């Protein structure tokens, strides 16, 4: 099977029914994507499939062969961290940090569809991502900040 992860085509040998999460983590050693619940309830495993946020813990790898997958490891580019990542740092969102890869992937998918979300729209889009440390107020702030930066950078 071949997978395209962060614009790189990779040959993989995992069993076909293996969830994408465990292929990323155990075969490709891309451990930024996290395991939290295994049943698409917590969002720690959020990655992008063709630009949309999905839960990789319930996605059999055979179903995504040949499609574009982006993970937290692909957020930054040659210019550096993505605006969402920078906003997360600026706002000092993370506490334990375990959920934040998933939060950042969910936020960046949201902002690519909705460049200027309201609080309510952020709440709805991010409701599937649990943070046990309760960094939610800063997540809201950071999404707004990222939205502002992305708009500014586009118009610049």
């Amino acid at each position, binding site marked *: 099977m071949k997978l395209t992860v962060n614009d790189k085509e990779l040959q993989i040998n*995992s*069993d076909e029914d*293996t*969830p994408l999460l*465990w292929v990323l*983590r*155990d*075969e490709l*050693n*891309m*451990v*930024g*994507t*996290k*395991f*939290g*619940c*295994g*049943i698409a*309830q*917590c969002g*720690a495993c959020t990655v992008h499939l063709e630009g949309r946020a999905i839960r990789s813990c319930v996605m059999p790898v055979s179903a995504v062969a040949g499609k574009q997958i982006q*993970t*937290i*490891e692909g*957020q*930054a580019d040659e210019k550096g*961290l993505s605006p969402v*990542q920078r906003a*997360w*740092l600026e706002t*000092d*969102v*993370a*506490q*334990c*940090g*375990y*959920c*934040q*890869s998933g939060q*950042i992937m969910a936020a960046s998918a949201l902002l690519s569809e909705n460049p200027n979300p309201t609080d309510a729209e*952020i*709440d*709805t889009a*991010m*409701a*599937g*991502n*649990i*943070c*046990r*440390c*309760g*960094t*939610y*107020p*800063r*997540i*809201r702030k950071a999404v707004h900040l990222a939205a502002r930066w992305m708009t500014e950078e586009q118009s610049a």
Partner: protein
Amino acid sequence: MSEATSSSGLNRRQFVRAGGAFLFAAQCPITFSRKAHAAVGGSMMNSFVRIDPSNVITLLANNSEFGNGAYTVMSMMLAEELDVDYRSIVLEAAPTTPEYYSPLFREYLTAGSVTTGSTFMPMRTAGAKARAMLLEAASRDWQVPTDELVTHGGQVTHAGSGRSSTYGELLETIHRLDIQPPETVTLKDPSEFAVLGKPARRYEGAGKVDGTAQFGIDIKLPGMLYGAIARPPVHGGSVVDFDATDALTMPGVVKAKAIRAGVVVLADSYWRAQKARAKLKINWDRGANDGVSSEQFYRDYREMAETPGMLAEDIGDALSALEQADEVLESVYEMPLLAHATLEPMNCIAQVEGATCTIWSGTQYQSNDQEVISRFLGIPQENVTIHRPLMGGSFGRRSSKTADYTVEAVEAAKGESVPVQIIWSREEDIRSGHYRPLFVHKLRGSVDSSGMPEAWHQVVVGQSLMQGTKHDPNYMVRGMDIYSLDGCLQEPFGVFPYGTSYAIPHHRVESHNAPKIGIVPQEWRSVGHTHTGIAYECFLDELAVKGGVDPLELRLQLTKDHARMNRVLKVLREKCEWDKPLALGRGRGVASRVYSISPIAQAVEITVAENGDFTVDRVVCVVDCGFAVNPLGIEGQVEGGVAYGLGGVAFGNIDIVDGEVQQSNFHDYPVMRLPQMPKFEIHILPSDEPPTGVGEQATAPIAPAVANALFNATGRRVRRFPLSSQGFNLV
């Protein structure tokens, strides 16, 4: 063994930068010596500080990082006195040796919201003493007076001569002149602080936005096998026999074996191990807890609460006062078992080689893990090496006194020639974990002619955390667990140097230890206050209503002799606009708590719909944590504490029926999500008192404050928790 051996759990990139030489010390216990001695990769200036010739400054951190901000505050404290950027300091896990035990716990333990308070002087002193040696070196080498020298950015400078050296360059002089650490040193006056007291972003924040932060679950070792454990359906159950024929035919599966925790399947990937586990056929002995239920616990505990308990406190004469009172209010509060549900499930890697054992484990409690493992393997404690990754939350779960998730990995790895990683599924975490014990509180009270509380009689029933453990001598007082009672007593008790801050003239508290039944009780963020806070603050609210006294005014009156809490409440009253009327269907509630010295109070505003759905619209929190070392970190801890406590009181419930935990994952053990998070305001009071904790404090008042607000809005008093079990759903 590449990155895993290097793990003090920081960003993997930082280790590349730090270089291999530094890592050696983490594996080689450093013996304390007042004489600065050359270590591999640099010179130990004292137990905590190492400087290398290229001017890399390493802090040997003896507190763990699980979101609490320990690494940030410790590096800030050192940086302040050493005049360097806190972000330039390299952190390394201090070895698990007595030299690095917490001066408070006398163990290697990060707990109790005491990291900031207990490291404030040691870290600063370590920095100041190292700086003094560098100054002495420069002064003697350059033949200039010390007071003409300036330290900044890791350099010593002499303006007059224009000379300047990095700290690293001065090491040679220190060794050549045999400069010793000073006996005493003067620390900076707070007015000189450049780092402490200023908002500082998380030390290890960068790795937490690019996916490179290394948690225990992320560590890969060559040849490592993954283990999944099938656990008994009932706590305390055990394996009679099992058939692994089908499991062993599955690809990648290496072995299945019975261990004390259940049956472990070892495979070449976690997914394969999990899949094979489902194919095991196991004959379980359900053990002594078969048939137990939460409802039975409630019934038994309520019965115990009707009988006299051990007497913890007896101020005035509460029993007579209640006998003579015109009217006595009586209530029973019931709090369920709660799981911690850290987002990173429990996991541990273990490797056993001859008489040595190495583990890679996210843990709050290194010395205990070491002790339990050495006992299990029959090897000396110093033969157990612990590598420290970051932790994806803990909230008390990773301070396991039984070292459950650690020693089972050792058991699984014993007899294997490779390291074994055990990872818990969420279902195991919810069903087979350790819990905040179930508690029942019975309260009786009366008010005086002015409506103020006059007599208070509380009987507390629940499983003790400490009874029968090695902590028994320190935390049991005349048979009573001080954690069961923390937050109920007006006077200091045992090693806790604080009371509730309230002064009720007749105050009696009794305690029953419920039987130990093999469902392991464990500290849950804010520990005793998770139940005492609800019982105490809600019943106080009941008395306020009874006496016709405003509940915030009542607390102001009760704390007249407790200056710090009184100030907190005064600020709260103003900031939360307490006296501003609310619309119909809305309500306000207040609660105030002292946990581990820091007074904290919260006022909440809620809106309740006809069907019981409610929103928490606003939380105003005022805290006095002494000198605020990192205001940005404090704000985060307090927000997080509110979220944790609010989720717990709203829907946290582990329910046992016929011996089996009914919940299994986040769909039936819901936790706080973003849309439910209230608007939040924090006011940190300026203070010159020594710093005290905030990590757990905010979890304590939010639960009763919300329950009190629900009463305020609806007239319905909840006495069985969570709120969702009583028709109130947080949305």
